[in-house]
Protein backbone atom coordinates (compact mmCIF):
# COMPACT_ATOMS: atom_id res chain seq x y z
CA UNK A 1 0.00 0.00 0.00
CA UNK A 2 1.09 3.55 -0.62
CA UNK A 3 1.44 5.37 2.71
CA UNK A 4 -1.30 7.85 3.60
CA UNK A 5 -2.27 10.10 6.45
CA UNK A 6 -5.16 8.90 8.54
CA UNK A 7 -7.90 11.12 9.88
CA UNK A 8 -9.94 9.93 12.86
CA UNK A 9 -12.77 12.47 13.02
CA UNK A 10 -14.70 13.04 16.22
CA UNK A 11 -17.72 14.62 14.52
CA UNK A 12 -19.48 14.19 11.19
CA UNK A 13 -18.73 17.85 10.39
CA UNK A 14 -15.02 17.20 10.88
CA UNK A 15 -15.23 14.09 8.68
CA UNK A 16 -17.04 16.05 5.97
CA UNK A 17 -14.45 18.80 5.97
CA UNK A 18 -11.53 16.36 5.78
CA UNK A 19 -13.25 14.30 3.08
CA UNK A 20 -13.41 17.35 0.79
CA UNK A 21 -9.60 17.63 0.64
CA UNK A 22 -8.02 16.55 -2.66
CA UNK A 23 -6.74 13.00 -3.04
CA UNK A 24 -8.79 11.91 -0.04
CA UNK A 25 -11.14 8.96 0.35
CA UNK A 26 -13.49 7.98 3.16
CA UNK A 27 -13.43 4.52 4.66
CA UNK A 28 -15.93 2.28 6.45
CA UNK A 29 -14.49 -1.05 7.61
CA UNK A 30 -12.07 -0.95 4.67
CA UNK A 31 -12.71 -4.49 3.41
CA UNK A 32 -13.05 -3.30 -0.17
CA UNK A 33 -10.79 -0.27 0.08
CA UNK A 34 -7.81 -1.95 1.79
CA UNK A 35 -7.93 -4.69 -0.84
CA UNK A 36 -7.82 -2.11 -3.66
CA UNK A 37 -5.08 -0.12 -1.95
CA UNK A 38 -2.94 -3.26 -1.67
CA UNK A 39 -3.27 -3.68 -5.45
CA UNK A 40 -2.36 0.02 -5.78
CA UNK A 41 -5.53 0.62 -7.73
CA UNK A 42 -6.40 3.25 -5.17
CA UNK A 43 -3.55 5.36 -3.84
CA UNK A 44 -5.06 8.20 -1.80
CA UNK A 45 -2.74 10.41 0.23
CA UNK A 46 -5.36 10.81 2.94
CA UNK A 47 -8.02 8.52 4.39
CA UNK A 48 -10.89 9.66 6.55
CA UNK A 49 -11.94 6.81 8.79
CA UNK A 50 -15.67 6.93 9.50
CA UNK A 51 -15.61 4.19 12.16
CA UNK A 52 -15.10 6.61 15.09
CA UNK A 53 -18.56 7.99 14.24
CA UNK A 54 -20.26 4.68 15.01
CA UNK A 55 -22.36 6.09 17.85
CA UNK A 56 -24.21 8.42 15.49
CA UNK A 57 -23.85 6.46 12.22
CA UNK A 58 -24.41 2.81 13.17
CA UNK A 59 -27.49 0.95 14.33
CA UNK A 60 -31.06 0.32 13.31
CA UNK A 61 -33.96 2.34 14.68
CA UNK A 62 -37.62 2.79 13.92
CA UNK A 63 -38.29 6.48 13.26
CA UNK A 64 -41.86 7.59 12.47
CA UNK A 65 -42.62 4.03 11.46
CA UNK A 66 -39.84 3.84 8.89
CA UNK A 67 -36.60 1.99 9.48
CA UNK A 68 -33.40 4.02 9.71
CA UNK A 69 -30.27 1.96 9.08
CA UNK A 70 -27.08 3.85 9.94
CA UNK A 71 -24.46 3.76 7.17
CA UNK A 72 -21.95 2.06 9.48
CA UNK A 73 -24.32 -0.71 10.56
CA UNK A 74 -22.63 -4.06 9.93
CA UNK A 75 -24.13 -6.86 7.86
CA UNK A 76 -24.19 -9.08 10.99
CA UNK A 77 -26.26 -6.43 12.78
CA UNK A 78 -28.61 -6.29 9.81
CA UNK A 79 -28.94 -10.08 9.76
CA UNK A 80 -29.65 -10.33 13.49
CA UNK A 81 -31.77 -7.26 14.22
CA UNK A 82 -35.34 -8.04 15.37
CA UNK A 83 -36.71 -5.19 13.22
CA UNK A 84 -35.82 -7.27 10.14
CA UNK A 85 -37.30 -10.50 11.42
CA UNK A 86 -40.52 -10.29 9.41
CA UNK A 87 -41.78 -11.33 5.99
CA UNK A 88 -41.75 -7.79 4.61
CA UNK A 89 -38.01 -7.36 5.20
CA UNK A 90 -36.91 -10.99 4.80
CA UNK A 91 -35.32 -10.25 1.42
CA UNK A 92 -32.99 -7.69 2.97
CA UNK A 93 -32.21 -9.83 6.01
CA UNK A 94 -31.43 -12.85 3.88
CA UNK A 95 -29.27 -10.88 1.45
CA UNK A 96 -27.16 -9.62 4.37
CA UNK A 97 -26.98 -13.12 5.88
CA UNK A 98 -25.81 -14.71 2.63
CA UNK A 99 -23.10 -12.18 1.84
CA UNK A 100 -19.46 -13.31 1.89
CA UNK A 101 -18.37 -15.03 5.13
CA UNK A 102 -19.08 -14.54 8.85
CA UNK A 103 -15.73 -12.75 9.32
CA UNK A 104 -16.58 -10.30 6.51
CA UNK A 105 -20.13 -9.71 7.75
CA UNK A 106 -18.91 -8.88 11.27
CA UNK A 107 -17.16 -5.78 9.91
CA UNK A 108 -18.64 -4.92 6.48
CA UNK A 109 -20.79 -1.79 6.62
CA UNK A 110 -24.06 -1.25 4.79
CA UNK A 111 -22.76 1.86 2.98
CA UNK A 112 -19.50 0.11 2.06
CA UNK A 113 -21.47 -2.79 0.62
CA UNK A 114 -23.58 -0.50 -1.56
CA UNK A 115 -20.57 1.54 -2.66
CA UNK A 116 -18.05 -1.27 -3.22
CA UNK A 117 -16.05 -1.27 -6.43
CA UNK A 118 -16.92 -3.82 -9.10
CA UNK A 119 -15.31 -7.28 -8.86
CA UNK A 120 -14.35 -7.34 -12.57
CA UNK A 121 -11.08 -9.26 -12.61
CA UNK A 122 -9.53 -7.01 -15.22
CA UNK A 123 -10.15 -3.70 -13.53
CA UNK A 124 -9.25 -5.10 -10.09
CA UNK A 125 -5.90 -6.39 -11.28
CA UNK A 126 -2.81 -4.24 -11.16
CA UNK A 127 -1.58 -5.96 -14.32
CA UNK A 128 -4.51 -4.87 -16.51
CA UNK A 129 -5.46 -1.40 -17.64
CA UNK A 130 -9.16 -0.68 -18.15
CA UNK A 131 -11.19 2.33 -19.09
CA UNK A 132 -13.26 1.90 -15.94
CA UNK A 133 -10.95 3.05 -13.18
CA UNK A 134 -9.27 5.38 -15.68
CA UNK A 135 -6.12 3.38 -16.32
CA UNK A 136 -6.60 2.23 -19.91
CA UNK A 137 -8.36 2.88 -23.22
CA UNK A 138 -11.11 0.22 -23.32
CA UNK A 139 -13.14 -2.30 -21.36
CA UNK A 140 -10.97 -5.43 -21.48
CA UNK A 141 -13.79 -7.76 -20.42
CA UNK A 142 -15.87 -6.84 -23.45
CA UNK A 143 -13.67 -9.07 -25.64
CA UNK A 144 -11.91 -11.03 -22.88
CA UNK A 145 -13.09 -13.64 -20.37
CA UNK A 146 -16.41 -12.16 -19.39
CA UNK A 147 -18.11 -15.10 -17.67
CA UNK A 148 -18.99 -13.00 -14.60
CA UNK A 149 -19.96 -9.86 -16.49
CA UNK A 150 -23.10 -8.06 -17.67
CA UNK A 151 -25.90 -9.32 -19.86
CA UNK A 152 -28.15 -6.30 -19.47
CA UNK A 153 -28.01 -2.51 -19.69
CA UNK A 154 -24.30 -2.22 -20.38
CA UNK A 155 -22.75 0.54 -22.50
CA UNK A 156 -18.98 0.79 -23.01
CA UNK A 157 -18.06 -1.32 -19.97
CA UNK A 158 -19.53 -4.70 -19.00
CA UNK A 159 -18.70 -4.72 -15.26
CA UNK A 160 -21.46 -5.84 -12.90
CA UNK A 161 -22.62 -4.18 -9.73
CA UNK A 162 -21.69 -6.62 -6.97
CA UNK A 163 -23.75 -5.46 -3.99
CA UNK A 164 -26.09 -8.00 -2.38
CA UNK A 165 -27.94 -5.34 -0.43
CA UNK A 166 -28.78 -3.06 -3.35
CA UNK A 167 -31.49 -5.21 -5.02
CA UNK A 168 -33.61 -5.80 -1.88
CA UNK A 169 -33.19 -2.19 -0.72
CA UNK A 170 -34.40 -0.98 -4.12
CA UNK A 171 -37.31 -3.43 -4.09
CA UNK A 172 -38.35 -2.10 -0.67
CA UNK A 173 -38.33 1.50 -1.92
CA UNK A 174 -35.38 2.59 0.24
CA UNK A 175 -33.90 6.09 0.33
CA UNK A 176 -30.46 7.28 1.39
CA UNK A 177 -29.20 10.34 3.23
CA UNK A 178 -25.89 12.03 2.64
CA UNK A 179 -24.03 15.03 3.91
CA UNK A 180 -21.89 17.31 1.76
CA UNK A 181 -20.61 20.74 2.83
CA UNK A 182 -22.75 20.42 5.95
CA UNK A 183 -25.92 20.02 3.85
CA UNK A 184 -28.05 16.95 4.42
CA UNK A 185 -29.82 15.46 1.41
CA UNK A 186 -32.22 12.57 1.16
CA UNK A 187 -32.93 10.85 -2.16
CA UNK A 188 -34.35 7.68 -3.67
CA UNK A 189 -31.82 4.85 -3.60
CA UNK A 190 -31.97 4.56 -7.40
CA UNK A 191 -30.30 8.02 -7.55
CA UNK A 192 -27.19 6.52 -5.94
CA UNK A 193 -26.46 4.60 -9.16
CA UNK A 194 -25.69 6.24 -12.53
CA UNK A 195 -28.58 6.05 -15.00
CA UNK A 196 -26.10 5.61 -17.87
CA UNK A 197 -23.34 3.48 -16.38
CA UNK A 198 -20.50 4.48 -18.68
CA UNK A 199 -16.98 3.18 -18.16
CA UNK A 200 -15.62 6.50 -16.90
CA UNK A 201 -18.30 6.82 -14.24
CA UNK A 202 -17.96 5.38 -10.75
CA UNK A 203 -20.32 2.68 -9.43
CA UNK A 204 -22.19 5.45 -7.63
CA UNK A 205 -23.14 9.08 -8.11
CA UNK A 206 -21.66 10.52 -4.88
CA UNK A 207 -19.71 13.75 -5.22
CA UNK A 208 -16.17 14.03 -3.88
CA UNK A 209 -16.42 14.34 -0.10
CA UNK A 210 -20.07 13.34 0.11
CA UNK A 211 -20.74 10.92 2.96
CA UNK A 212 -23.64 8.49 3.15
CA UNK A 213 -25.08 8.70 6.65
CA UNK A 214 -28.12 6.38 6.57
CA UNK A 215 -30.57 4.27 4.59
CA UNK A 216 -34.31 4.58 5.17
CA UNK A 217 -36.89 1.91 4.51
CA UNK A 218 -40.46 3.19 4.31
CA UNK A 219 -43.27 1.58 6.27
CA UNK A 220 -44.23 -1.53 4.31
CA UNK A 221 -47.89 -2.01 3.39
CA UNK A 222 -49.97 -4.72 5.02
CA UNK A 223 -49.36 -7.98 3.14
CA UNK A 224 -45.83 -7.04 1.97
CA UNK A 225 -43.30 -9.87 1.64
CA UNK A 226 -39.82 -9.72 0.19
CA UNK A 227 -37.26 -12.27 -0.88
CA UNK A 228 -33.73 -12.40 -2.24
CA UNK A 229 -32.18 -15.25 -4.23
CA UNK A 230 -28.87 -15.56 -5.97
CA UNK A 231 -26.85 -18.04 -8.00
CA UNK A 232 -23.15 -18.45 -7.32
CA UNK A 233 -20.37 -20.93 -7.81
CA UNK A 234 -19.45 -21.51 -4.17
CA UNK A 235 -21.66 -21.90 -1.10
CA UNK A 236 -19.73 -19.24 0.77
CA UNK A 237 -17.09 -16.55 0.05
CA UNK A 238 -18.56 -15.84 -3.34
CA UNK A 239 -20.25 -12.96 -5.11
CA UNK A 240 -23.45 -13.71 -7.02
CA UNK A 241 -23.44 -14.64 -10.70
CA UNK A 242 -27.09 -13.55 -10.89
CA UNK A 243 -29.40 -12.21 -8.19
CA UNK A 244 -33.02 -11.18 -7.82
CA UNK A 245 -34.94 -9.38 -5.10
CA UNK A 246 -38.71 -9.35 -5.09
CA UNK A 247 -41.33 -7.55 -3.07
CA UNK A 248 -44.94 -8.63 -3.35
CA UNK A 249 -47.84 -6.97 -1.59
CA UNK A 250 -50.51 -9.64 -1.19
CA UNK A 251 -54.18 -8.93 -0.82
CA UNK A 252 -55.67 -12.27 0.09
CA UNK A 253 -54.29 -14.61 -2.56
CA UNK A 254 -53.92 -11.86 -5.17
CA UNK A 255 -50.81 -9.79 -5.83
CA UNK A 256 -51.73 -6.14 -5.25
CA UNK A 257 -48.30 -4.61 -5.96
CA UNK A 258 -44.88 -5.95 -7.00
CA UNK A 259 -41.24 -4.98 -7.45
CA UNK A 260 -38.55 -7.05 -9.16
CA UNK A 261 -34.89 -6.00 -9.07
CA UNK A 262 -31.97 -7.84 -10.67
CA UNK A 263 -28.43 -7.82 -9.29
CA UNK A 264 -25.07 -9.01 -10.65
CA UNK A 265 -26.11 -8.87 -14.30
CA UNK A 266 -25.65 -5.18 -15.15
CA UNK A 267 -23.26 -2.34 -14.22
CA UNK A 268 -25.94 -1.08 -11.84
CA UNK A 269 -28.66 -2.93 -9.90
CA UNK A 270 -31.65 -3.11 -12.26
CA UNK A 271 -35.29 -2.63 -11.26
CA UNK A 272 -37.49 -4.40 -13.87
CA UNK A 273 -40.83 -2.54 -13.72
CA UNK A 274 -42.15 -4.05 -16.94
CA UNK A 275 -41.78 -7.52 -15.47
CA UNK A 276 -43.19 -6.48 -12.09
CA UNK A 277 -46.37 -4.89 -13.44
CA UNK A 278 -47.44 -8.18 -15.04
CA UNK A 279 -47.76 -9.61 -11.52
CA UNK A 280 -50.32 -7.07 -10.37
CA UNK A 281 -53.87 -8.38 -10.01
CA UNK A 282 -52.79 -11.99 -10.57
CA UNK A 283 -52.64 -15.05 -8.36
CA UNK A 284 -49.30 -16.79 -7.82
CA UNK A 285 -48.59 -19.60 -10.28
CA UNK A 286 -45.54 -21.11 -11.90
CA UNK A 287 -46.81 -20.02 -15.32
CA UNK A 288 -46.91 -16.45 -14.07
CA UNK A 289 -43.39 -16.76 -12.63
CA UNK A 290 -42.11 -18.08 -15.98
CA UNK A 291 -43.61 -15.14 -17.83
CA UNK A 292 -42.18 -12.63 -15.36
CA UNK A 293 -38.75 -14.26 -15.51
CA UNK A 294 -38.74 -13.95 -19.32
CA UNK A 295 -39.75 -10.29 -19.07
CA UNK A 296 -37.13 -9.60 -16.39
CA UNK A 297 -34.47 -10.64 -18.90
CA UNK A 298 -36.16 -9.07 -21.95
CA UNK A 299 -33.56 -7.28 -24.05
CA UNK A 300 -30.64 -9.11 -22.42
CA UNK A 301 -27.62 -9.57 -24.68
CA UNK A 302 -25.09 -12.09 -23.40
CA UNK A 303 -21.38 -11.69 -24.03
CA UNK A 304 -19.11 -14.41 -25.41
CA UNK A 305 -18.77 -16.34 -22.11
CA UNK A 306 -21.90 -15.67 -20.08
CA UNK A 307 -25.01 -16.88 -21.92
CA UNK A 308 -25.59 -19.17 -18.90
CA UNK A 309 -26.64 -16.08 -16.95
CA UNK A 310 -29.89 -15.89 -18.90
CA UNK A 311 -30.95 -19.44 -18.07
CA UNK A 312 -29.74 -19.35 -14.48
CA UNK A 313 -30.94 -15.78 -13.90
CA UNK A 314 -34.50 -16.62 -14.99
CA UNK A 315 -34.58 -19.63 -12.66
CA UNK A 316 -33.45 -17.34 -9.84
CA UNK A 317 -36.26 -14.87 -10.61
CA UNK A 318 -38.80 -17.71 -10.43
CA UNK A 319 -37.33 -18.91 -7.14
CA UNK A 320 -37.40 -15.39 -5.64
CA UNK A 321 -41.05 -14.99 -6.69
CA UNK A 322 -41.96 -18.39 -5.30
CA UNK A 323 -40.27 -17.62 -1.96
CA UNK A 324 -42.00 -14.24 -1.65
CA UNK A 325 -45.42 -15.72 -2.45
CA UNK A 326 -45.08 -18.90 -0.38
Amino acid at each position, binding site marked *: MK*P*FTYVMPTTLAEAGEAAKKPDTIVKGAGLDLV*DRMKERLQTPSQIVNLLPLKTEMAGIAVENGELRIGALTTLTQLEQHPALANRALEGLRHSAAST*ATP*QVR*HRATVAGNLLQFTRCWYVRSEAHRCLHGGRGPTCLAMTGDNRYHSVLGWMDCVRVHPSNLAPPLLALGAEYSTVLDGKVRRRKLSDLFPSEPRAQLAEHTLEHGEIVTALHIPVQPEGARSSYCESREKLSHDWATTACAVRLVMSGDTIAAADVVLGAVSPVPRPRPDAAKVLVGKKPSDDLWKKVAELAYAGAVPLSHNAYKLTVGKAIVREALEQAAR
Partner: protein
Amino acid sequence: MTEPKKVLATFQVNGEPHEVAFLPHKTLLEVLREEMNLTGTKHGCELGECGACTVQIDGKPILSCLMLAVDAVGKDVRTVEGLANGAELSQLQHAFADLGAAQCGYCTPGILMTADALLAENASPTRDEIKQCLAGNLCRCTGSLTIFEAVELAAARCRGEKAEPSKESIYGS
Protein backbone atom coordinates in the same frame (compact mmCIF):
# COMPACT_ATOMS: atom_id res chain seq x y z
CA MET B 1 -0.75 17.63 3.45
CA THR B 2 1.77 16.25 5.94
CA GLU B 3 4.01 13.24 5.26
CA PRO B 4 2.72 9.98 6.70
CA LYS B 5 4.29 9.43 10.10
CA LYS B 6 4.57 6.39 12.30
CA VAL B 7 1.99 6.31 15.03
CA LEU B 8 2.74 5.09 18.52
CA ALA B 9 -0.09 3.16 20.05
CA THR B 10 -0.84 0.57 22.69
CA PHE B 11 -2.70 -2.53 21.58
CA GLN B 12 -4.40 -4.91 24.00
CA VAL B 13 -3.51 -8.33 22.67
CA ASN B 14 -4.36 -11.49 24.60
CA GLY B 15 -4.93 -9.35 27.68
CA GLU B 16 -1.50 -7.71 27.58
CA PRO B 17 -0.58 -4.20 26.48
CA HIS B 18 1.81 -3.97 23.49
CA GLU B 19 3.21 -0.55 22.69
CA VAL B 20 4.30 -0.33 19.05
CA ALA B 21 5.21 2.29 16.48
CA PHE B 22 3.84 1.56 13.01
CA LEU B 23 2.78 3.28 9.81
CA PRO B 24 -0.96 3.85 9.46
CA HIS B 25 -1.11 1.89 6.20
CA LYS B 26 -0.08 -1.36 7.90
CA THR B 27 -2.74 -4.01 8.40
CA LEU B 28 -3.40 -5.62 11.77
CA LEU B 29 -1.96 -8.85 10.35
CA GLU B 30 1.32 -7.11 9.49
CA VAL B 31 1.59 -5.37 12.84
CA LEU B 32 0.82 -8.54 14.81
CA ARG B 33 3.39 -10.59 12.91
CA GLU B 34 6.10 -8.06 12.20
CA GLU B 35 5.97 -5.63 15.12
CA MET B 36 4.72 -7.87 17.94
CA ASN B 37 6.27 -11.15 16.76
CA LEU B 38 2.90 -12.88 17.13
CA THR B 39 3.38 -15.11 14.11
CA GLY B 40 0.67 -17.65 15.01
CA THR B 41 -1.78 -15.65 12.90
CA LYS B 42 -1.20 -16.70 9.31
CA HIS B 43 -0.74 -14.72 6.15
CA GLY B 44 -2.79 -16.44 3.45
CA CYS B 45 -4.57 -14.89 0.48
CA GLU B 46 -4.53 -11.27 1.73
CA LEU B 47 -7.91 -10.83 -0.03
CA GLY B 48 -10.40 -11.90 2.59
CA GLU B 49 -10.91 -15.24 0.89
CA CYS B 50 -9.23 -17.86 3.10
CA GLY B 51 -9.69 -16.97 6.78
CA ALA B 52 -6.11 -17.95 7.75
CA CYS B 53 -5.60 -14.47 9.25
CA THR B 54 -8.67 -14.62 11.52
CA VAL B 55 -8.28 -13.08 14.98
CA GLN B 56 -10.92 -12.00 17.48
CA ILE B 57 -11.75 -8.36 18.06
CA ASP B 58 -13.98 -7.86 21.09
CA GLY B 59 -14.83 -11.56 20.86
CA LYS B 60 -15.86 -11.57 17.18
CA PRO B 61 -13.79 -13.34 14.50
CA ILE B 62 -12.57 -10.90 11.86
CA LEU B 63 -9.97 -10.88 9.07
CA SER B 64 -6.76 -9.16 10.16
CA CYS B 65 -5.52 -8.93 6.54
CA LEU B 66 -8.26 -6.43 5.62
CA MET B 67 -8.24 -4.44 8.86
CA LEU B 68 -5.93 -1.49 9.29
CA ALA B 69 -3.98 -1.88 12.53
CA VAL B 70 -4.98 1.62 13.66
CA ASP B 71 -8.59 0.45 13.73
CA ALA B 72 -7.71 -2.17 16.36
CA VAL B 73 -6.27 0.29 18.88
CA GLY B 74 -8.43 0.37 22.02
CA LYS B 75 -10.06 -2.95 21.14
CA ASP B 76 -9.62 -6.32 22.80
CA VAL B 77 -7.53 -8.32 20.29
CA ARG B 78 -7.17 -12.08 20.74
CA THR B 79 -4.89 -14.26 18.66
CA VAL B 80 -4.15 -18.00 18.66
CA GLU B 81 -1.30 -17.34 21.11
CA GLY B 82 -3.94 -16.36 23.67
CA LEU B 83 -5.87 -19.63 23.57
CA ALA B 84 -3.66 -21.76 25.80
CA ASN B 85 -3.42 -21.07 29.50
CA GLY B 86 0.37 -21.12 29.96
CA ALA B 87 1.47 -24.61 28.95
CA GLU B 88 -2.08 -25.97 29.16
CA LEU B 89 -3.80 -26.12 25.79
CA SER B 90 -7.46 -25.12 25.50
CA GLN B 91 -10.12 -27.82 25.03
CA LEU B 92 -10.39 -26.83 21.40
CA GLN B 93 -6.64 -27.23 20.83
CA HIS B 94 -6.67 -30.59 22.63
CA ALA B 95 -9.56 -31.80 20.47
CA PHE B 96 -7.78 -30.73 17.27
CA ALA B 97 -4.65 -32.60 18.38
CA ASP B 98 -6.61 -35.72 19.47
CA LEU B 99 -8.45 -35.95 16.17
CA GLY B 100 -5.68 -34.88 13.84
CA ALA B 101 -7.87 -32.00 12.69
CA ALA B 102 -4.77 -30.26 11.36
CA GLN B 103 -2.49 -31.52 8.63
CA CYS B 104 -0.22 -28.79 7.28
CA GLY B 105 -1.72 -26.57 9.99
CA TYR B 106 -1.74 -23.35 8.02
CA CYS B 107 -5.49 -22.84 8.37
CA THR B 108 -5.58 -24.00 12.01
CA PRO B 109 -4.99 -20.73 13.91
CA GLY B 110 -7.77 -19.01 11.97
CA ILE B 111 -10.12 -21.95 12.44
CA LEU B 112 -9.37 -22.15 16.17
CA MET B 113 -10.12 -18.45 16.63
CA THR B 114 -13.38 -18.71 14.67
CA ALA B 115 -14.52 -21.86 16.48
CA ASP B 116 -13.49 -20.45 19.87
CA ALA B 117 -15.78 -17.45 19.31
CA LEU B 118 -18.62 -19.83 18.42
CA LEU B 119 -18.17 -21.94 21.57
CA ALA B 120 -18.10 -18.80 23.72
CA GLU B 121 -21.58 -17.95 22.41
CA ASN B 122 -23.05 -21.38 21.92
CA ALA B 123 -22.07 -24.31 24.17
CA SER B 124 -23.93 -26.88 22.06
CA PRO B 125 -23.63 -25.94 18.41
CA THR B 126 -25.19 -28.26 15.85
CA ARG B 127 -23.13 -29.59 12.92
CA ASP B 128 -24.91 -27.09 10.72
CA GLU B 129 -24.09 -24.16 13.01
CA ILE B 130 -20.44 -25.23 13.05
CA LYS B 131 -20.40 -25.37 9.24
CA GLN B 132 -21.99 -21.92 9.00
CA CYS B 133 -19.54 -20.50 11.49
CA LEU B 134 -16.53 -21.94 9.66
CA ALA B 135 -17.83 -20.98 6.20
CA GLY B 136 -15.12 -18.31 5.96
CA ASN B 137 -12.17 -20.62 6.74
CA LEU B 138 -10.70 -22.72 3.97
CA CYS B 139 -8.71 -25.87 4.65
CA ARG B 140 -6.90 -27.42 1.70
CA CYS B 141 -5.79 -30.58 3.53
CA THR B 142 -8.30 -32.15 5.90
CA GLY B 143 -11.49 -32.04 3.89
CA SER B 144 -13.00 -30.21 6.89
CA LEU B 145 -14.82 -33.21 8.38
CA THR B 146 -12.33 -33.81 11.21
CA ILE B 147 -12.42 -30.09 11.92
CA PHE B 148 -16.19 -30.20 12.48
CA GLU B 149 -15.75 -33.31 14.65
CA ALA B 150 -13.03 -31.63 16.68
CA VAL B 151 -15.26 -28.63 17.40
CA GLU B 152 -18.03 -31.00 18.50
CA LEU B 153 -15.61 -32.94 20.71
CA ALA B 154 -14.30 -29.73 22.31
CA ALA B 155 -17.85 -28.48 22.87
CA ALA B 156 -18.81 -31.74 24.60
CA ARG B 157 -15.73 -31.63 26.83
CA CYS B 158 -16.37 -27.96 27.68
CA ARG B 159 -19.87 -28.97 28.77
CA GLY B 160 -18.21 -31.40 31.18
CA GLU B 161 -19.10 -34.54 29.22
CA LYS B 162 -16.59 -37.38 29.16
CA ALA B 163 -16.25 -37.34 25.38
CA GLU B 164 -13.60 -39.33 23.53
CA PRO B 165 -12.98 -39.29 19.80
CA SER B 166 -14.71 -42.16 18.04
CA LYS B 167 -12.50 -44.88 16.56
CA GLU B 168 -13.88 -44.06 13.11
CA SER B 169 -12.75 -40.47 13.33
CA ILE B 170 -9.22 -41.51 14.26
CA TYR B 171 -8.72 -44.63 12.14
CA GLY B 172 -11.40 -44.13 9.51
CA SER B 173 -14.31 -46.50 9.07
